[in-house]
């Protein structure tokens, strides 16, 4: 039992890093998802192709490959062109996780926007809304509630993916657990505790996403 208590402190230190990383990368992922998702439906061919390439690239390659590339390969590319592209692990982790989850989120955004019935666009045009107004005031308020359940799943996915940053020596929960194991060799207790800590964080995160989902669903249709 004493052991268990001595494990809690380092693991909580790590949990704080995991939490920060989850928060930053989920927010970045959300912004990227809307940019790429709306971009894929753009009338402008360049925007559309850029979005498609971005989505295909980040969905098509492994997250760990992306993370290693950003952390190990990009500085070398920077050296070759004379720019310092070395990043602290937290930044590299946030960017890799955010862009990766953003690419998955982009497909959710695109799907939800396309699911808005055509007559909504026609009505908006008939009422002389500009394309920008149509998107912000007609389409997104109807599409966002549809996206929320998938966003919830992606947020959990993102939380789980943060464990990979321990491999670029960022001191998250998994990294701390690995250190503790090296020190004490008490694998069973440490990893069981770690699994339940991730499970607990996932339950809290999914509760938060449920609250956001309920909040967003109020925009769906106002009864007149």
């Amino acid at each position: 039992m004493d052991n268990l208590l001595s494990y809690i402190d380092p693991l909580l230190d790590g949990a704080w890093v995991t939490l920060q990383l989850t928060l930053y990368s989920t927010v970045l992922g959300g912004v990227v998802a809307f940019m790429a998702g709306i971009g894929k439906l753009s009338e402008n061919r360049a925007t559309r192709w850029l979005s498609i390439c971005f989505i295909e690239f980040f969905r098509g390659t492994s997250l760990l490959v992306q993370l290693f590339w950003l952390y190990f390969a990009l500085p070398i590319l920077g050296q070759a062109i004379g720019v310092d592209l070395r990043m602290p692990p937290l930044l590299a982790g946030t960017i890799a996780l955010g862009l990766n989850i953003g690419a998955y989120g982009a497909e959710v955004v695109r799907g939800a926007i396309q699911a808005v019935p055509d007559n909504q666009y026609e009505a908006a045009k008939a009422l002389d809304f500009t394309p920008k107004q149509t998107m912000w005031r007609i389409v997104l308020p109807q599409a966002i509630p549809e996206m929320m359940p998938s966003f919830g799943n992606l947020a959990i996915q993102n939380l789980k993916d943060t464990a990979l940053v321990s491999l670029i020596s960022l001191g998250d929960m998994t990294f701390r657990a690995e250190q503790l194991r090296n020190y004490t060799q008490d694998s069973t207790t440490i990893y069981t505790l770690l699994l339940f800590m991730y499970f607990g964080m996932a339950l809290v995160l999914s509760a938060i996403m449920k609250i956001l989902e309920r909040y967003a669903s109020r925009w769906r249709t106002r009864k007149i």
Partner: protein
Amino acid sequence: MLFGIEWDTANNWVFAWSILPILLKGLVVTIQATLVGFLVALILGLVLAALKGARLRIISWPAYFITEFIRDTPLLVQLFFLYYVLPEYGIILPAFMTGALALGLQYSAYTSEVYRAGLESIPHGQTEASRVLDFTPLHTFMFIILPQAIPRIIPALGNYLVSIMKDVPVLSVIAILEILNVARIIGDRTFNYLIPLSMVGIIYLLLTLLASAGIRYLDKRLPKEGIPLK
């Protein structure tokens, strides 16, 4: 030198060309791990789906909890758990099998849901009609429900096969020489990470594009009315 193959650092193109055969050796391991992991996921998923479908709550509830728990915890941590904890209880597996088991375990939570959704998507009228025609429950399941569920299940399983392939690099932490680990070793020894890691990215991109095209083809070709098992 790796796997007995030398690399040539004369210039970037020569270097890239000389390490390609080494990376392809890593790719073979990646594909092996993907397939074994997928097989484990298919079988464990079936077990979980069957348990979740049990009428007794004392059986089905733990199965739901296990599914949720597996799905909410990272593959990396599950892998460490299996790799370090199993030997303490006398279960010593080769690293490759531990890795494949971890992949299979993580994805069994997803495949079990695919099976369940596939079976539940068959209209209830089908079961009722079979009962009217006096088919036994086993006969109904094997020859009425399952043949119609399979075309709906296969494309979803295919997507998870691709996901498993993208998760194989995680196994590099237990010293499995899959493609990313091979690229990192080359990087460590030549101080050039850019080329090997970029090549791994390109190879992955080609593989997943190929695989998604394959799944789309399969989805189109599978008869929607069902596959006769007899």
